[in-house]
């Protein structure tokens, strides 16, 4: 019997040591997978966020020939965050926040300040203030066992696009420690929102534009990481995904994809996010976009929604609504503002586009603007970027200048 017990002992030792060594030798990613299978741990990508404040992509130009101060002020005046109180759409707030940033302050109490907008998005109690009269609306913030997420989709009270809230908060300069108050928990921060975005991101989902931008602004110079399913996600892969398929197949006639690609290129300049092969591909792609928009601009300066068809877009014009033209023109101006000159069509085209934008914004009523606030917000942002201006700073200066002028007028009188 002793012999039997000896065998049992030896085999148990082999068994324990064998599996122990195997576990130690298993890669981290596989250990996480194993843990999630065995003990139900939810796998969150182990990504280090190297900063507490997001990177910013500063505009490259200050060209008053594209837009002068007066016109810029007129446009920004139209797109101030002056929303209806009840059932305030998160989509409007997100767009306003990315333009005006968290530092925005307005004398007019009807305007939402940057911090108001941030709190609307990140504090469930604030969100409820605007939605308390509405029945059956779900909270914008979603508690998940592993973190905090944003409810998105087409229903009332939702953000419209996946990770759009995250991207807008990021562009607005919200820091990683910013607290988030969900319906049931008060210990989340912006970092939890980012980690949850990393966890639920799928490279082949329909819209990757905002995720790409947010990840770039937070994670650079990290080039790649494992997603929740063990797949290697890299900025190369994201860029490839942003270039895939017909050019207009993307949000806002495909222009957000171009903007995100330009953001990645700019980040790559400083943080080497991309491989040289991918950088070359993006370069070719953006030059092609340049040629297409150069060929597809209409005489009045607007770009059509089928800009990707190049000259054919003019020869066989599409019956675009005004909002489609605003979308295409405003968004193209926006990415061009951060693009090196090699990706620009002739500057006259930019001027014409800016002029068209100004004319079609300042003559709109508040209600007309409000109906399509999201599209006009891009126009305002684009024009401010062409002057290398932060809209809230420019607006404050403009107000001061106006006050001084009126004071001096009064004193002169």
């Amino acid at each position: 019997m002793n012999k039997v017990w000896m065998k049992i002992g030896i085999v148990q030792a082999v068994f324990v040591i064998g599996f122990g060594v195997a576990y130690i030798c298993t890669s981290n990613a596989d250990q996480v997978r194993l843990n999630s299978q065995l003990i139900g741990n939810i796998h969150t990508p182990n990504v280090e966020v190297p900063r507490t404040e997001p990177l910013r992509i500063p505009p490259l130009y200050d060209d008053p020939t594209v837009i002068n101060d007066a016109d810029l002020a007129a446009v920004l005046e139209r797109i101030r965050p002056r929303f209806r109180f009840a059932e305030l759409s998160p989509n409007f707030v997100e767009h306003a926040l990315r333009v005006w940033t968290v530092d925005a302050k307005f004398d007019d109490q009807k305007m939402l300040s940057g911090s108001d907008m941030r709190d609307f998005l990140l504090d469930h109690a604030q969100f409820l203030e605007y939605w308390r009269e509405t029945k059956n609306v779900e909270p914008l913030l979603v508690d998940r066992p592993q973190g905090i997420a944003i409810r998105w989709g087409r229903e009332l009270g939702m953000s419209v696009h996946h990770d759009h809230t995250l991207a807008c908060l990021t562009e607005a300069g919200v820091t990683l420690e910013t607290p988030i108050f969900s319906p049931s928990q008060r210990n989340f921060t912006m970092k939890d929102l980012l980690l949850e975005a990393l966890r639920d991101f799928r490279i082949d989902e329909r819209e990757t534009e905002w995720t790409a931008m947010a990840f770039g602004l937070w994670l650079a110079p990290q080039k790649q990481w494992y997603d929740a399913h063990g797949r290697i996600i890299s900025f190369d892969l994201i860029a490839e995904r942003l270039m895939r398929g017909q050019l207009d197949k993307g949000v806002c006639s495909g222009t957000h994809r171009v903007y995100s690609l330009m953001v990645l290129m700019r980040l790559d300049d400083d943080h080497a996010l991309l491989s040289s092969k991918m950088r070359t591909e993006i370069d070719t792609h953006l030059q092609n976009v340049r040629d297409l928009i150069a060929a597809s601009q209409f005489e009045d300066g607007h770009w059509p929604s089928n800009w990707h068809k190049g000259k054919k877009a003019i020869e066989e014009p599409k019956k675009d609504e005004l909002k489609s033209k605003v979308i295409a023109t405003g968004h193209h101006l926006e990415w061009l503002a951060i693009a090196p000159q090699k990706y620009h069509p002739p500057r006259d085209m930019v001027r014409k586009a800016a002029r068209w934008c100004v004319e079609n914004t300042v003559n709109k009523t508040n209600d007309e603007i409000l109906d399509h606030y999201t599209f006009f917000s891009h126009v305002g942002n684009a024009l401010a970027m062409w002057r290398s201006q932060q809209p809230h700073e420019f607006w404050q200066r403009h107000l001061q200048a106006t006050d001084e002028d009126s004071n001096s007028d009064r004193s002169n009188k």
Partner: protein
Amino acid sequence: MNNNSAENREKPEEPGSNMPSTLVEPDAEIQESSLTDETTSGAEEIPSQLSDDDHVAPLADPSKLEDRIPAQFRTTKAFAFWTIGFSILYVLMSYQPLWHTDIWGHVAYGHVILETGTIPATEPFMPLAEGVRLIDTSWLSQIILAALEGSFSTAGLQFFYAFSVTACCLLIAGITVRLTGNQWFAITSLCLFTIMVWKAAFVIRPQLAGMVCFLMLIAATPPWKHSTLSLPSRFQWFLVPGIMCLWANLHGSFPVGLLYLGGLFAGRSVDKIVRTGNWAAVINDESLVRSFLVLQLSAVAVLLNPYGLALYVQVLTFGQNPNLADLTEWNTMTIEMYHGKVAAAMAVLLAVVYRWSPRRVSSSELLLLVGFGLLAVVTRRMLIWLAPVAALAFSVHGHAIWKRFLARRLTSNDIPESDPEERRGIWTACATGSVWCAFAYAPIGLMLLHGAGTPEQQAKRYVRSLGKGTPVAATEYLNTMKPRGLVFNSYEWGDYLLHAGPTDIQLFTTSHAHLVPPDVWNDYLRIARVGSNWNDRLDRYGIDTVIVDKPRRKSLIGKLKDSDDWKVAYEDRQAAILVRKDPIGVQKTEKAMNQ
């Protein structure tokens, strides 16, 4: 010389005998040299020298010749017949056309491993699965397949197939003969096994290697006790973990082996406890302890693979992959399916033999049958693992019934004493000859003996070796047109296109569906089945070329033909290739420049 010699001597003199001397003389020499001292007692009757008239030597009666093959190499008639049978089976299987689906993918993976010296860490062939972690559960099989294909082209793959199938049948028959001692029940096992696995197992893929391992495991540790089959315990310590280690590297089905070993141990423990009424009896039974320890060692042996513990994670979570729900072979078994009908028929047969069998039914076999049966119901692909256990169970108990029947019908005098069959050299010669013929007439043997032949012969042989479902002509066309960008293809053809299509082809999917990201897989189905926004998906992926099979994708082909954006580039009875009139790839790179 005896009388027989005299008869033989006189045979050439019979009328009509005009055997040419050139043929006969050597025979005569052999005949003379074959005679032994004992048989030459009448040697004086043989003329020392043949007269001129008698130059045609007489033939000897082969049945009277002395068997000069050493005793240890002599075999029985049954052995010879089985060998001939398996040789024929091997040759027939060697000429089976290669199935058109995943074999080519496995070969491609094997080539990558051989060329790079490492197993790719991520999916190497599908652009849409870039970065997807690859845990290659069949890496060793793939290397073998690639090496065979590299050396012998399709003949090498046919060899792998024929060898594996023959080995499976050999093992099933061998186990049955060992368990029952009855050749007819061995044939019965073979038939039942073949019927059960016909639609699933006999497709060339690494799973066949897994099946061979499973049968080796059953042979090493059968659920039925039999003195002739029980291995000495010292062999079990090494043999069983060795088989499991090999299996884990050949194919991801190795958990079946661990389940089998676990089932054996659990069943035997139950039997022991029921018999003794004492739980402690399990620990006091050395053979039971050994089977548990062997199970543990097998579980450890499985870790000897390139991925270690990750292999367990991979195979145990494999079934959770949502893409598999769309593959019929992973679906739940229903009675409408061939598999369901076969499984139901087998269940009835087993119920009958268990009802009448005089043999004690062990808990192990019940556990294994029920366990594998339930697995097969959940996923019909698992039927192949039930098949050998069920076939052997039927034969073992069928044989027990047959023996009781004979015992009742015949008196003890009527029952022939079991007389071990005579072992003779002639049967060894027959067996050896059949093996040689099988080798020589199989495609790989022909290549080895006669060379690969001219390029034209090789091309003909290649096409002949492919299954009917293989899109040979369409692929050739694709090679001439060299498609740009992503190509939307029928899932079933992805692997062949990878193998025989343009070298830089970018396929939407291959048959390794579990590696395709679920979003991409959903889009594949949406396009292939012409679901909502199917054409939007084609635009979003930037697809300019579509190659699909006509029988299954009629709707898609029809829609594309009706569309203004697409035109037919190639069409035959089997396949259609459609291309975008205004290619997206060109739009991106050339359109603006042209304008």
